[in-house]
Protein backbone atom coordinates (compact mmCIF):
# COMPACT_ATOMS: atom_id res chain seq x y z
CA UNK A 1 0.00 0.00 0.00
CA UNK A 2 1.22 3.45 -0.83
CA UNK A 3 -0.05 4.88 2.43
CA UNK A 4 2.80 6.40 4.38
CA UNK A 5 3.75 4.96 7.77
CA UNK A 6 2.48 7.28 10.49
CA UNK A 7 5.88 7.58 12.03
CA UNK A 8 9.13 5.77 11.64
CA UNK A 9 11.33 5.58 14.69
CA UNK A 10 14.49 5.17 12.69
CA UNK A 11 15.00 7.82 10.03
CA UNK A 12 18.02 6.88 7.98
CA UNK A 13 19.28 9.68 5.82
CA UNK A 14 22.15 11.84 4.69
CA UNK A 15 23.60 15.06 6.01
CA UNK A 16 25.35 17.04 3.30
CA UNK A 17 27.87 19.69 4.21
CA UNK A 18 27.73 22.50 1.67
CA UNK A 19 30.73 24.11 3.36
CA UNK A 20 32.95 21.12 2.67
CA UNK A 21 31.74 19.84 -0.71
CA UNK A 22 34.31 20.63 -3.38
CA UNK A 23 32.08 19.65 -6.31
CA UNK A 24 34.24 16.78 -7.56
CA UNK A 25 31.23 14.59 -8.56
CA UNK A 26 32.91 11.47 -7.10
CA UNK A 27 29.63 10.69 -5.28
CA UNK A 28 27.78 10.88 -8.61
CA UNK A 29 30.14 8.38 -10.20
CA UNK A 30 30.22 5.94 -7.29
CA UNK A 31 26.43 6.09 -7.02
CA UNK A 32 26.02 5.34 -10.71
CA UNK A 33 28.54 2.52 -10.46
CA UNK A 34 27.07 0.80 -7.42
CA UNK A 35 23.47 1.13 -8.56
CA UNK A 36 24.19 -0.06 -12.06
CA UNK A 37 25.98 -3.19 -10.91
CA UNK A 38 23.70 -4.13 -8.04
CA UNK A 39 20.03 -3.83 -7.02
CA UNK A 40 17.36 -3.33 -9.70
CA UNK A 41 17.49 -2.31 -13.35
CA UNK A 42 20.86 -0.74 -14.29
CA UNK A 43 21.06 3.03 -14.67
CA UNK A 44 21.12 3.34 -18.44
CA UNK A 45 22.87 5.83 -20.65
CA UNK A 46 21.28 7.07 -23.85
CA UNK A 47 23.61 7.80 -26.76
CA UNK A 48 26.67 7.71 -24.47
CA UNK A 49 29.13 8.67 -27.24
CA UNK A 50 26.90 11.42 -28.65
CA UNK A 51 24.56 13.80 -26.87
CA UNK A 52 25.09 11.79 -23.71
CA UNK A 53 22.29 11.60 -21.21
CA UNK A 54 21.26 8.99 -18.75
CA UNK A 55 19.82 8.09 -15.39
CA UNK A 56 21.53 9.28 -12.22
CA UNK A 57 20.27 9.04 -8.65
CA UNK A 58 22.55 11.78 -7.40
CA UNK A 59 23.63 14.94 -9.15
CA UNK A 60 25.83 17.85 -8.10
CA UNK A 61 24.62 21.34 -8.95
CA UNK A 62 26.81 24.41 -8.54
CA UNK A 63 25.52 27.81 -7.55
CA UNK A 64 26.91 31.28 -7.29
CA UNK A 65 25.78 33.01 -4.13
CA UNK A 66 26.06 36.75 -3.72
CA UNK A 67 25.32 37.68 -0.11
CA UNK A 68 23.91 41.08 0.86
CA UNK A 69 27.29 41.98 2.30
CA UNK A 70 30.59 40.51 1.27
CA UNK A 71 31.98 38.71 -1.71
CA UNK A 72 30.38 36.14 -3.99
CA UNK A 73 30.85 32.46 -3.25
CA UNK A 74 30.53 29.24 -5.22
CA UNK A 75 28.56 26.51 -3.50
CA UNK A 76 28.50 22.93 -4.77
CA UNK A 77 25.19 21.32 -4.10
CA UNK A 78 24.76 17.53 -4.28
CA UNK A 79 21.14 16.45 -4.53
CA UNK A 80 19.52 13.03 -4.26
CA UNK A 81 16.35 11.64 -2.69
CA UNK A 82 15.69 13.25 0.69
CA UNK A 83 13.62 10.27 1.97
CA UNK A 84 10.85 12.63 3.11
CA UNK A 85 8.65 11.80 6.06
CA UNK A 86 5.67 13.09 4.14
CA UNK A 87 6.77 11.82 0.76
CA UNK A 88 4.31 13.03 -1.92
CA UNK A 89 5.87 10.61 -4.45
CA UNK A 90 4.65 7.61 -2.46
CA UNK A 91 0.98 8.45 -2.04
CA UNK A 92 0.41 9.33 -5.72
CA UNK A 93 1.65 5.93 -6.92
CA UNK A 94 -1.28 4.01 -8.44
CA UNK A 95 0.36 0.57 -8.51
CA UNK A 96 1.83 0.37 -5.02
CA UNK A 97 5.36 0.26 -6.44
CA UNK A 98 6.48 3.25 -4.37
CA UNK A 99 6.69 2.78 -0.65
CA UNK A 100 8.30 4.10 2.48
CA UNK A 101 9.76 1.51 4.81
CA UNK A 102 8.39 1.54 8.33
CA UNK A 103 11.58 0.11 9.83
CA UNK A 104 14.01 2.80 8.67
CA UNK A 105 12.06 5.35 6.61
CA UNK A 106 13.83 4.62 3.31
CA UNK A 107 11.68 5.41 0.25
CA UNK A 108 11.96 2.69 -2.39
CA UNK A 109 10.46 1.60 -5.70
CA UNK A 110 9.43 -2.00 -6.32
CA UNK A 111 10.39 -2.22 -9.97
CA UNK A 112 8.27 -5.35 -10.48
CA UNK A 113 5.12 -3.29 -9.91
CA UNK A 114 6.11 0.04 -11.51
CA UNK A 115 4.23 0.85 -14.74
CA UNK A 116 6.36 3.87 -15.60
CA UNK A 117 3.61 6.48 -15.49
CA UNK A 118 5.99 9.08 -14.09
CA UNK A 119 3.46 10.60 -11.69
CA UNK A 120 5.79 10.17 -8.69
CA UNK A 121 8.49 12.16 -10.50
CA UNK A 122 5.96 14.95 -11.02
CA UNK A 123 4.99 14.85 -7.36
CA UNK A 124 8.59 15.18 -6.10
CA UNK A 125 9.58 18.86 -5.79
CA UNK A 126 13.30 17.99 -5.69
CA UNK A 127 13.68 16.09 -8.95
CA UNK A 128 14.91 13.06 -7.05
CA UNK A 129 13.25 10.50 -9.32
CA UNK A 130 14.20 9.73 -12.89
CA UNK A 131 12.41 7.34 -15.21
CA UNK A 132 14.99 5.06 -16.76
CA UNK A 133 14.62 5.40 -20.52
CA UNK A 134 15.84 1.86 -21.23
CA UNK A 135 14.10 -0.10 -18.48
CA UNK A 136 10.93 2.02 -18.35
CA UNK A 137 10.83 1.96 -14.56
CA UNK A 138 11.29 4.73 -12.03
CA UNK A 139 14.73 4.95 -10.44
CA UNK A 140 15.64 6.72 -7.24
CA UNK A 141 18.20 6.74 -4.45
CA UNK A 142 17.84 3.59 -2.33
CA UNK A 143 20.19 4.94 0.34
CA UNK A 144 22.21 1.92 -0.79
CA UNK A 145 19.85 -0.38 1.07
CA UNK A 146 21.90 -3.24 -0.41
CA UNK A 147 25.09 -1.97 1.27
CA UNK A 148 24.05 -0.61 4.64
CA UNK A 149 22.68 -3.95 5.92
CA UNK A 150 25.02 -6.14 3.87
CA UNK A 151 26.99 -8.40 6.16
CA UNK A 152 29.10 -9.64 3.26
CA UNK A 153 30.77 -6.25 3.15
CA UNK A 154 33.43 -5.12 5.63
CA UNK A 155 31.85 -2.94 8.29
CA UNK A 156 33.39 0.30 7.03
CA UNK A 157 31.70 -0.25 3.68
CA UNK A 158 28.21 -0.54 5.18
CA UNK A 159 27.21 2.99 4.28
CA UNK A 160 25.90 4.50 1.04
CA UNK A 161 28.40 4.48 -1.84
CA UNK A 162 28.31 8.29 -2.09
CA UNK A 163 29.24 8.70 1.58
CA UNK A 164 31.94 6.03 1.41
CA UNK A 165 33.57 7.63 -1.60
CA UNK A 166 33.38 11.35 -0.72
CA UNK A 167 37.02 12.49 -0.49
CA UNK A 168 36.12 15.71 1.32
CA UNK A 169 34.01 14.13 4.05
CA UNK A 170 31.08 16.30 2.99
CA UNK A 171 28.52 13.51 3.22
CA UNK A 172 27.38 11.85 6.42
CA UNK A 173 25.03 8.91 6.90
CA UNK A 174 23.08 7.98 9.99
CA UNK A 175 19.84 7.88 11.92
CA UNK A 176 18.24 11.32 12.02
CA UNK A 177 15.43 9.96 14.16
CA UNK A 178 17.82 9.51 17.08
CA UNK A 179 18.70 12.90 18.61
CA UNK A 180 21.93 11.47 20.05
CA UNK A 181 23.30 10.11 16.78
CA UNK A 182 26.39 11.70 15.25
CA UNK A 183 24.41 13.06 12.31
CA UNK A 184 21.71 14.59 14.53
CA UNK A 185 24.39 16.20 16.69
CA UNK A 186 26.04 17.57 13.58
CA UNK A 187 22.76 19.01 12.31
CA UNK A 188 22.07 20.63 15.68
CA UNK A 189 25.57 22.06 15.93
CA UNK A 190 25.73 23.44 12.38
CA UNK A 191 22.11 24.52 12.01
CA UNK A 192 21.19 21.98 9.32
CA UNK A 193 18.22 22.90 7.18
CA UNK A 194 15.44 21.34 5.10
CA UNK A 195 15.15 22.06 1.38
CA UNK A 196 11.86 23.68 0.31
CA UNK A 197 10.26 23.45 3.76
CA UNK A 198 7.15 25.21 2.39
CA UNK A 199 6.42 22.15 0.26
CA UNK A 200 5.54 20.31 3.46
CA UNK A 201 7.48 17.17 2.61
CA UNK A 202 9.47 17.02 5.87
CA UNK A 203 12.69 15.75 4.29
CA UNK A 204 14.91 13.46 6.35
CA UNK A 205 18.14 14.53 4.64
CA UNK A 206 19.57 17.76 5.97
CA UNK A 207 21.90 20.32 4.43
CA UNK A 208 24.55 22.13 6.43
CA UNK A 209 24.83 25.70 5.14
CA UNK A 210 28.27 27.16 4.38
CA UNK A 211 29.87 28.45 7.57
CA UNK A 212 29.79 32.24 7.84
CA UNK A 213 33.03 33.87 6.77
CA UNK A 214 35.03 34.88 9.84
CA UNK A 215 35.99 38.52 10.39
CA UNK A 216 38.93 40.13 12.17
CA UNK A 217 38.34 42.56 15.04
CA UNK A 218 41.02 45.07 14.00
CA UNK A 219 42.16 46.57 10.75
CA UNK A 220 45.40 44.76 10.27
CA UNK A 221 47.29 45.15 7.06
CA UNK A 222 48.63 41.78 5.97
CA UNK A 223 51.90 43.46 5.02
CA UNK A 224 52.06 45.22 8.43
CA UNK A 225 54.77 43.08 10.01
CA UNK A 226 57.03 43.66 7.03
CA UNK A 227 56.53 47.38 7.20
CA UNK A 228 57.24 47.73 10.93
CA UNK A 229 58.79 51.15 11.44
CA UNK A 230 62.46 51.44 12.42
CA UNK A 231 62.73 52.24 16.15
CA UNK A 232 62.69 56.00 16.50
CA UNK A 233 64.29 55.97 19.92
CA UNK A 234 67.83 54.55 19.66
CA UNK A 235 68.79 52.14 22.41
CA UNK A 236 72.04 51.02 24.05
CA UNK A 237 75.24 53.00 23.42
CA UNK A 238 73.59 55.08 20.73
CA UNK A 239 70.71 55.81 23.11
CA UNK A 240 73.13 56.99 25.82
CA UNK A 241 75.00 59.08 23.25
CA UNK A 242 71.76 60.54 22.03
CA UNK A 243 70.61 61.46 25.54
CA UNK A 244 74.08 62.77 26.52
CA UNK A 245 74.34 64.98 23.46
CA UNK A 246 70.78 66.19 24.13
CA UNK A 247 71.87 67.46 27.57
CA UNK A 248 74.83 69.47 26.34
Amino acid at each position, binding site marked *: MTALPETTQTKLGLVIDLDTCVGCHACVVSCKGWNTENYGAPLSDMDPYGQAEGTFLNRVHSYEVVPDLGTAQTVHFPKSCLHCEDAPCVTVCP*TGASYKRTEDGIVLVNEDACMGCGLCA*WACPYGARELDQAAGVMKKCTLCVDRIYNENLPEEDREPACVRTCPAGARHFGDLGDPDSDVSQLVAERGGIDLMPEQGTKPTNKYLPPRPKDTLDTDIDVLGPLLAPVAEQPKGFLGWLDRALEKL
Partner: protein
Amino acid sequence: MHPAPSVIFFSVLSGAGFGLLTLLGFGARATSQGWPAFVFFAVGFVLAVGGLLSATLHLANPKNAIYSFSQWRTSWLSREGISAVAALSLMGLYAALIIFFDIRVAPLGYVAGALCLFTVFTTAMIYTQIKAVPRWHQPLATPALFLSYALTGGALLAGAVAHAGFLFLLTALIQLWHWNGGDKAFRNAGTNMNTATGLKGAVRQFESPHTGDNYLLKEMVYVVGRKHAFKLRIIALLFAALIPSFMMLGEVKHLGALIAVALYFTGTFASRWLFFAEAEHVVGLYYGKR
Protein backbone atom coordinates in the same frame (compact mmCIF):
# COMPACT_ATOMS: atom_id res chain seq x y z
CA MET B 1 5.57 20.50 -17.76
CA HIS B 2 6.02 18.55 -20.98
CA PRO B 3 2.75 18.65 -22.95
CA ALA B 4 2.73 14.98 -23.92
CA PRO B 5 0.29 14.49 -26.83
CA SER B 6 -0.97 11.20 -25.36
CA VAL B 7 -2.02 12.87 -22.13
CA ILE B 8 -3.55 15.89 -23.86
CA PHE B 9 -5.54 13.65 -26.22
CA PHE B 10 -6.59 11.52 -23.29
CA SER B 11 -7.87 14.31 -21.11
CA VAL B 12 -9.65 16.21 -23.91
CA LEU B 13 -11.27 13.20 -25.61
CA SER B 14 -12.18 11.22 -22.53
CA GLY B 15 -13.36 14.45 -20.88
CA ALA B 16 -15.81 15.12 -23.70
CA GLY B 17 -16.80 11.44 -23.85
CA PHE B 18 -17.49 11.19 -20.13
CA GLY B 19 -19.28 14.55 -20.30
CA LEU B 20 -21.57 13.20 -23.02
CA LEU B 21 -22.18 9.96 -21.13
CA THR B 22 -22.96 11.93 -17.96
CA LEU B 23 -25.68 13.88 -19.73
CA LEU B 24 -27.04 10.75 -21.42
CA GLY B 25 -27.15 9.08 -18.00
CA PHE B 26 -29.06 12.00 -16.57
CA GLY B 27 -31.66 11.78 -19.30
CA ALA B 28 -30.49 13.98 -22.19
CA ARG B 29 -31.83 12.47 -25.43
CA ALA B 30 -34.24 10.46 -23.30
CA THR B 31 -36.58 10.07 -26.26
CA SER B 32 -33.95 8.34 -28.38
CA GLN B 33 -33.90 4.57 -28.65
CA GLY B 34 -32.60 1.98 -31.05
CA TRP B 35 -30.15 3.31 -33.64
CA PRO B 36 -30.21 7.03 -32.67
CA ALA B 37 -29.55 6.11 -29.04
CA PHE B 38 -26.80 3.74 -30.17
CA VAL B 39 -25.06 6.53 -32.08
CA PHE B 40 -25.02 8.87 -29.09
CA PHE B 41 -23.76 6.22 -26.68
CA ALA B 42 -21.22 5.00 -29.24
CA VAL B 43 -19.75 8.49 -29.62
CA GLY B 44 -19.46 8.76 -25.84
CA PHE B 45 -17.82 5.34 -25.48
CA VAL B 46 -15.42 5.84 -28.40
CA LEU B 47 -14.21 9.15 -26.99
CA ALA B 48 -13.96 7.95 -23.39
CA VAL B 49 -12.31 4.61 -24.16
CA GLY B 50 -10.16 6.07 -26.95
CA GLY B 51 -8.91 8.68 -24.53
CA LEU B 52 -8.12 6.08 -21.88
CA LEU B 53 -6.24 3.94 -24.41
CA SER B 54 -4.29 6.99 -25.52
CA ALA B 55 -3.26 7.55 -21.90
CA THR B 56 -1.73 4.09 -21.72
CA LEU B 57 0.68 5.14 -24.50
CA HIS B 58 2.18 7.44 -21.89
CA LEU B 59 3.26 4.48 -19.76
CA ALA B 60 6.87 3.36 -20.02
CA ASN B 61 6.12 -0.10 -18.65
CA PRO B 62 2.46 -0.86 -19.45
CA LYS B 63 2.72 -4.55 -18.53
CA ASN B 64 2.34 -3.56 -14.88
CA ALA B 65 -0.70 -1.34 -15.56
CA ILE B 66 -3.01 -3.95 -13.99
CA TYR B 67 -1.62 -3.08 -10.55
CA SER B 68 -2.92 0.47 -10.95
CA PHE B 69 -6.34 -0.59 -9.68
CA SER B 70 -4.90 -1.44 -6.28
CA GLN B 71 -4.04 1.86 -4.56
CA TRP B 72 -7.41 3.61 -4.47
CA ARG B 73 -6.92 4.49 -0.80
CA THR B 74 -4.21 7.05 -1.55
CA SER B 75 -3.77 7.53 -5.29
CA TRP B 76 -6.03 9.65 -7.53
CA LEU B 77 -4.64 7.90 -10.60
CA SER B 78 -5.73 4.56 -9.17
CA ARG B 79 -9.16 6.01 -8.30
CA GLU B 80 -9.46 7.28 -11.86
CA GLY B 81 -8.86 3.80 -13.29
CA ILE B 82 -11.40 2.16 -10.99
CA SER B 83 -13.95 4.90 -11.49
CA ALA B 84 -13.57 4.77 -15.28
CA VAL B 85 -14.10 1.02 -15.39
CA ALA B 86 -17.11 1.20 -13.05
CA ALA B 87 -18.64 4.13 -14.96
CA LEU B 88 -18.21 2.51 -18.36
CA SER B 89 -19.56 -0.86 -17.18
CA LEU B 90 -22.70 0.59 -15.63
CA MET B 91 -23.20 3.00 -18.51
CA GLY B 92 -22.78 0.09 -20.92
CA LEU B 93 -25.53 -1.81 -19.16
CA TYR B 94 -27.79 1.27 -19.12
CA ALA B 95 -27.14 1.86 -22.83
CA ALA B 96 -27.67 -1.78 -23.80
CA LEU B 97 -31.06 -1.85 -22.04
CA ILE B 98 -32.14 1.27 -23.92
CA ILE B 99 -30.78 0.28 -27.31
CA PHE B 100 -31.83 -3.36 -27.42
CA PHE B 101 -34.81 -3.60 -25.08
CA ASP B 102 -36.10 -0.03 -25.02
CA ILE B 103 -36.00 -0.14 -21.22
CA ARG B 104 -34.77 3.01 -19.47
CA VAL B 105 -33.66 2.31 -15.89
CA ALA B 106 -33.40 5.92 -14.71
CA PRO B 107 -31.63 5.27 -11.34
CA LEU B 108 -29.00 3.19 -13.14
CA GLY B 109 -28.48 6.12 -15.52
CA TYR B 110 -28.05 8.54 -12.61
CA VAL B 111 -25.49 6.33 -10.88
CA ALA B 112 -23.56 5.68 -14.09
CA GLY B 113 -23.73 9.38 -15.02
CA ALA B 114 -22.48 10.44 -11.61
CA LEU B 115 -19.60 7.97 -11.91
CA CYS B 116 -18.71 9.41 -15.34
CA LEU B 117 -18.56 12.89 -13.84
CA PHE B 118 -16.55 11.57 -10.89
CA THR B 119 -14.06 10.05 -13.35
CA VAL B 120 -13.45 13.50 -14.85
CA PHE B 121 -13.01 14.83 -11.31
CA THR B 122 -10.41 12.16 -10.53
CA THR B 123 -8.52 13.11 -13.71
CA ALA B 124 -8.49 16.72 -12.53
CA MET B 125 -7.34 15.68 -9.05
CA ILE B 126 -4.29 13.89 -10.49
CA TYR B 127 -3.03 17.35 -11.47
CA THR B 128 -4.58 19.35 -8.64
CA GLN B 129 -2.86 17.25 -5.95
CA ILE B 130 0.64 18.08 -7.22
CA LYS B 131 1.91 20.78 -4.94
CA ALA B 132 5.22 20.95 -6.81
CA VAL B 133 3.35 22.45 -9.79
CA PRO B 134 1.71 25.52 -8.26
CA ARG B 135 -0.35 26.35 -11.38
CA TRP B 136 -2.08 22.99 -11.10
CA HIS B 137 -2.39 23.06 -7.32
CA GLN B 138 -5.58 25.15 -7.30
CA PRO B 139 -7.98 23.04 -5.24
CA LEU B 140 -11.16 24.56 -6.71
CA ALA B 141 -10.24 26.03 -10.08
CA THR B 142 -8.48 23.00 -11.58
CA PRO B 143 -11.32 20.50 -10.96
CA ALA B 144 -13.83 23.14 -12.07
CA LEU B 145 -11.86 23.63 -15.27
CA PHE B 146 -11.84 19.94 -16.19
CA LEU B 147 -15.49 19.45 -15.25
CA SER B 148 -16.69 22.48 -17.17
CA TYR B 149 -14.83 21.55 -20.35
CA ALA B 150 -16.15 17.99 -20.09
CA LEU B 151 -19.76 19.00 -19.50
CA THR B 152 -19.65 21.64 -22.23
CA GLY B 153 -18.31 19.16 -24.74
CA GLY B 154 -20.88 16.63 -23.56
CA ALA B 155 -23.77 19.08 -23.90
CA LEU B 156 -22.60 20.04 -27.37
CA LEU B 157 -22.28 16.42 -28.49
CA ALA B 158 -25.64 15.53 -26.94
CA GLY B 159 -27.21 18.40 -28.85
CA ALA B 160 -28.49 19.89 -25.60
CA VAL B 161 -28.26 23.34 -27.14
CA ALA B 162 -30.10 25.18 -24.41
CA HIS B 163 -27.61 23.96 -21.80
CA ALA B 164 -24.60 24.24 -24.05
CA GLY B 165 -24.87 28.00 -24.56
CA PHE B 166 -24.85 28.59 -20.80
CA LEU B 167 -22.12 26.03 -20.19
CA PHE B 168 -19.89 27.65 -22.81
CA LEU B 169 -20.04 30.97 -20.97
CA LEU B 170 -19.43 29.26 -17.65
CA THR B 171 -16.40 27.49 -19.14
CA ALA B 172 -15.03 30.83 -20.33
CA LEU B 173 -15.35 32.28 -16.83
CA ILE B 174 -13.77 29.27 -15.15
CA GLN B 175 -10.96 29.29 -17.70
CA LEU B 176 -10.23 32.96 -16.94
CA TRP B 177 -10.37 32.21 -13.21
CA HIS B 178 -7.88 29.35 -13.64
CA TRP B 179 -5.45 31.45 -15.69
CA ASN B 180 -5.69 34.32 -13.27
CA GLY B 181 -5.00 32.11 -10.24
CA GLY B 182 -2.38 30.15 -12.13
CA ASP B 183 -0.37 33.21 -13.12
CA LYS B 184 0.11 34.11 -9.46
CA ALA B 185 0.43 30.59 -8.13
CA PHE B 186 4.19 30.14 -8.38
CA ARG B 187 4.94 33.35 -6.55
CA ASN B 188 2.30 32.65 -3.91
CA ALA B 189 3.66 29.15 -3.31
CA GLY B 190 6.73 30.79 -1.81
CA THR B 191 9.22 28.38 -3.39
CA ASN B 192 12.26 30.14 -4.83
CA MET B 193 16.01 29.74 -5.26
CA ASN B 194 16.58 30.48 -1.57
CA THR B 195 14.15 27.92 -0.18
CA ALA B 196 15.27 25.38 -2.81
CA THR B 197 18.93 25.60 -1.86
CA GLY B 198 18.72 26.97 1.68
CA LEU B 199 21.35 29.52 0.68
CA LYS B 200 21.03 33.17 1.62
CA GLY B 201 21.54 36.03 -0.80
CA ALA B 202 21.18 36.13 -4.57
CA VAL B 203 21.52 32.54 -5.80
CA ARG B 204 21.97 31.65 -9.46
CA GLN B 205 23.09 28.55 -11.27
CA PHE B 206 26.83 28.55 -11.84
CA GLU B 207 27.13 25.16 -13.49
CA SER B 208 24.54 22.57 -14.48
CA PRO B 209 25.12 19.11 -12.94
CA HIS B 210 25.28 17.57 -16.41
CA THR B 211 26.18 18.71 -19.89
CA GLY B 212 23.45 16.78 -21.72
CA ASP B 213 19.71 16.69 -21.35
CA ASN B 214 17.92 14.49 -18.83
CA TYR B 215 14.50 13.13 -17.93
CA LEU B 216 13.82 15.89 -15.42
CA LEU B 217 14.50 18.68 -17.90
CA LYS B 218 12.48 17.05 -20.66
CA GLU B 219 9.55 16.10 -18.48
CA MET B 220 9.30 18.96 -16.01
CA VAL B 221 11.28 21.93 -17.24
CA TYR B 222 9.53 22.37 -20.57
CA VAL B 223 10.07 26.02 -21.50
CA VAL B 224 9.62 25.83 -25.29
CA GLY B 225 6.63 27.43 -26.94
CA ARG B 226 5.42 29.59 -24.10
CA LYS B 227 6.01 32.65 -26.26
CA HIS B 228 2.75 31.93 -28.08
CA ALA B 229 0.88 31.46 -24.83
CA PHE B 230 -1.14 34.65 -25.10
CA LYS B 231 -2.29 33.95 -28.66
CA LEU B 232 -3.21 30.41 -27.70
CA ARG B 233 -5.21 31.68 -24.75
CA ILE B 234 -7.23 33.88 -27.11
CA ILE B 235 -7.74 30.94 -29.48
CA ALA B 236 -8.82 28.70 -26.60
CA LEU B 237 -11.25 31.24 -25.23
CA LEU B 238 -12.79 32.10 -28.61
CA PHE B 239 -12.96 28.61 -30.08
CA ALA B 240 -13.79 26.53 -27.01
CA ALA B 241 -16.26 28.94 -25.47
CA LEU B 242 -17.24 32.28 -26.90
CA ILE B 243 -17.89 31.55 -30.60
CA PRO B 244 -19.83 28.30 -29.93
CA SER B 245 -21.76 30.10 -27.22
CA PHE B 246 -22.98 32.68 -29.74
CA MET B 247 -23.75 29.93 -32.24
CA MET B 248 -26.01 28.34 -29.65
CA LEU B 249 -28.14 31.49 -29.60
CA GLY B 250 -29.42 30.75 -33.07
CA GLU B 251 -30.99 27.62 -34.52
CA VAL B 252 -28.18 25.04 -34.78
CA LYS B 253 -28.61 22.43 -37.49
CA HIS B 254 -26.31 19.56 -38.31
CA LEU B 255 -23.64 21.52 -40.17
CA GLY B 256 -23.62 24.27 -37.55
CA ALA B 257 -23.33 21.68 -34.79
CA LEU B 258 -20.43 20.04 -36.62
CA ILE B 259 -18.66 23.40 -36.87
CA ALA B 260 -19.33 24.08 -33.19
CA VAL B 261 -17.88 20.66 -32.27
CA ALA B 262 -14.79 21.29 -34.41
CA LEU B 263 -14.31 24.69 -32.79
CA TYR B 264 -14.80 23.22 -29.32
CA PHE B 265 -12.14 20.57 -29.83
CA THR B 266 -9.66 23.03 -31.38
CA GLY B 267 -10.08 25.44 -28.48
CA THR B 268 -10.00 22.70 -25.87
CA PHE B 269 -6.78 21.24 -27.29
CA ALA B 270 -5.23 24.72 -27.16
CA SER B 271 -6.37 25.19 -23.58
CA ARG B 272 -5.13 21.77 -22.49
CA TRP B 273 -1.80 22.25 -24.26
CA LEU B 274 -1.37 25.47 -22.31
CA PHE B 275 -2.40 23.71 -19.11
CA PHE B 276 0.78 21.64 -19.45
CA ALA B 277 3.15 23.97 -21.29
CA GLU B 278 2.55 26.90 -18.96
CA ALA B 279 2.76 24.82 -15.78
CA GLU B 280 6.07 25.30 -14.03
CA HIS B 281 7.48 22.62 -11.74
CA VAL B 282 9.52 23.85 -8.78
CA VAL B 283 12.37 21.48 -9.71
CA GLY B 284 13.20 23.92 -12.51
CA LEU B 285 14.64 26.22 -9.85
CA TYR B 286 17.52 23.81 -9.27
CA TYR B 287 18.42 24.27 -12.92
CA GLY B 288 17.98 28.03 -12.79
CA LYS B 289 14.95 27.70 -15.05
CA ARG B 290 11.24 27.79 -14.66
